[in-house]
């Protein structure tokens, strides 16, 4: 295993450009590379902008999804490197699991590390997990696992089966209805730096095979946590499966049910019932 320590967060815009230019000729197994950044501090203005766009309360404890803002650029750098076997363009985020081992304060310096693992076979291609870990003074406080699907790709021989589903209860009661506006993707892109063209406009999304722009999955996940503010344990695990794309604009319904000291949640189209995201929140 080789760990490369970066001094600053890579620019996501240029990584997307690189991804587009280097999508051909990929293959082989996952690289054994770890990328890291040390002593990363949270920019309070950025945290405030993130809280605003995700409708999270502004506090001194980081939202469970916030460290992903810091680790995602590193994961993108890993994925866009030529050594990575799958083309970044066309990767679909299908599952995201975050574990908050303890509440992380906004004034704590974080050591971040990301890597890829679990190249797995999926009925319509292959999946890979992009993992991340945040430690404070040597103690792990947060970790995440983002599972991406590459349609048509082939996992190496002997690869395990993909694990992309999250089981939830029936969830029949709607807790809230949200109108997700046309510019939701652009607004979140501005804060997160995730300028994947599929989120930005109808035209750019069409170029990549989507009929309209789609909402960022991690934004939907964060908004669900915002809706549960005050009702969450400090140490928790939030595991969500992203199902059908949430096309913009849309009206969606959030369903919640209290389960085992935590929650089962689902975000569905308010009219058709198409499931966009289901997930579980559990204390840990």
């Amino acid at each position: 295993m080789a760990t490369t320590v970066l001094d600053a967060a890579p620019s996501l815009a240029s990584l997307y450009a690189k991804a587009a230019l280097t999508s051909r000729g990929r293959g082989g197994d996952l690289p054994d590379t770890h990328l890291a950044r040390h002593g990363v501090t949270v920019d309070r203005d950025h945290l405030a902008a993130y809280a605003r766009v995700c409708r999270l309360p502004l506090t001194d404890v980081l939202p469970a999804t916030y460290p992903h803002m810091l680790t995602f650029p590193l994961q993108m750098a890993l994925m866009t490197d030529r050594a990575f076997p799958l083309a970044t363009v066309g990767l679909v985020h299908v599952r995201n699991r975050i574990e908050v081992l303890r509440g992380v304060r906004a004034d704590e310096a974080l050591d971040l590390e990301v890597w890829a693992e679990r190249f797995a076979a999926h009925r319509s291609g292959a999946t890979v997990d992009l993992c991340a870990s945040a430690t404070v003074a040597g103690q792990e406080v947060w970790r995440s696992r983002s599972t991406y699907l590459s349609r048509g790709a082939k996992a190496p021989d002997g690869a395990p089966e993909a694990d992309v589903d999250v089981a939830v209860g029936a969830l029949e009661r709607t807790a809230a209805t949200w109108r997700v506006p046309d510019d939701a993707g652009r607004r979140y892109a501005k804060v997160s730096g995730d300028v994947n063209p599929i989120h930005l406009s109808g035209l750019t999304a069409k170029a990549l095979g989507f009929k309209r722009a789609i909402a960022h999955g991690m934004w939907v996940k964060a908004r669900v946590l915002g809706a549960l503010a005050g009702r969450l344990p400090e140490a928790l695990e939030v595991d969500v499966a992203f199902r059908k794309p949430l096309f913009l604009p849309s009206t969606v319904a959030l369903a919640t049910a209290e389960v085992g000291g935590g929650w089962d949640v689902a975000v569905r189209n308010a009219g058709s019932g198409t499931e966009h995201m289901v997930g579980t929140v559990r204390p840990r």
Partner: protein
Amino acid sequence: MADTSTPATRTAAIVGGNRIPFARSNTAYAQASNQDMLTATLDGLVARFGLQGEQVGEVVAGAVLKHARDFNLTRESVLGSTLAASTPAYDIQQACGTGLEAAILVANKIALGQIESGIAGGVDTTSDAPLAVGDDLRRVLISLNSAKTLGDRLKALSRIRPGQLVPDMPRNAEPRTGLAMGDHAAITAKEWEIGREEQDELAVRSHQNMAAAYDRGFFDDLVTPYLGLTRDNNLRPDSSVEKLAKLKPVFGKGEGATMTAANSTPLTDGASAVLLASDEWAAAKGLPVLAHLVDAQTAAVDYVHGGEGLLMAPAYAVPVMLARNGLTLQDFDFYEIHEAFASTVLSTMKAWEDPAFCKEKLGLDAPLGSIDRSKLNVNGSSLAAGHPFAATGGRIVASLAKMLHEAGPGKRGLISVCAAGGQGVVAILES
């Protein structure tokens, strides 16, 4: 003494309080909304007294500067807090008296046995302030919204003029007089011949008292850090009369102007909350009783046509409350007179000492007399902490309750808060 014909009631206990450090406008809390600050303050209070997931009788709070979308600010904050979602809440607004009035309302319901516990609070932001579109533009937008046809919409849009696009900034000014609150206070300061030096001395003492209180840990169980701030960032422990003397007056005009940025409170962001309860509720939870809210009074003056100073209403409210309780102005161990401006505190005290004012305006046979200045705002007040309008009352109630508790049983404190609109809210706490 209380009228014996009224049914016997209990007095509400003050269990404790919590606030976030206050921040000067557009500093540490520039990105925080009223709801963010109030929620954080409630969560801090809940954590301090172990009330996670519990229902309290009622949460009453308010903000003076409030966005239209925040019509249910307190209830929304409760829903986002760690209190049980089944906790009822409502908003109130009485300008700078909001926080103290909220405590009085909660205390009264406890006294009547309608609730056993409650939280009184207040919050204000002058950074994330509600900008309104001007009235002309607002009317255009309303007709645009109700237009049925494209023609109607275009007609409505054609009425927009560039000048209408300048938003209405909230101002700390009286709608009926057009004067800033500071300019009103300057008129009163001149009438009562309040000098520059005594105002500066009062301001310096406020900073020094509050800095000393922080240093000896007085605020450790009253304040929870927020957004990186651990102390009020308006606090200047090294403040001195010499430094303050160099400042130019900002309120009042010309020769004899005395009010500066240092002896007036700055625009401030912050929030506070106080937990009140019946003695039984507190005992059942194993929580302390710091003091009781014994009585309260409001008053208002005609500062528009009646010639009274905008911030002089507490001078009228206090003697009514004293008479009802059979007390004199000297029967207190602590005085908490809100320092909207140093000159307001000094004018109020001078009025109580003045035989003519006490006779003609208050209808008293003798002046209320002077108060022992060593008992005044002993842990600092708004000149040092800053003054997020609706949050000041909660700051004072919690601090005074703690001071009375530390002083031992049977101690008495007076709170006096002046408010925009020529109003005053005052209260008595006893340990």
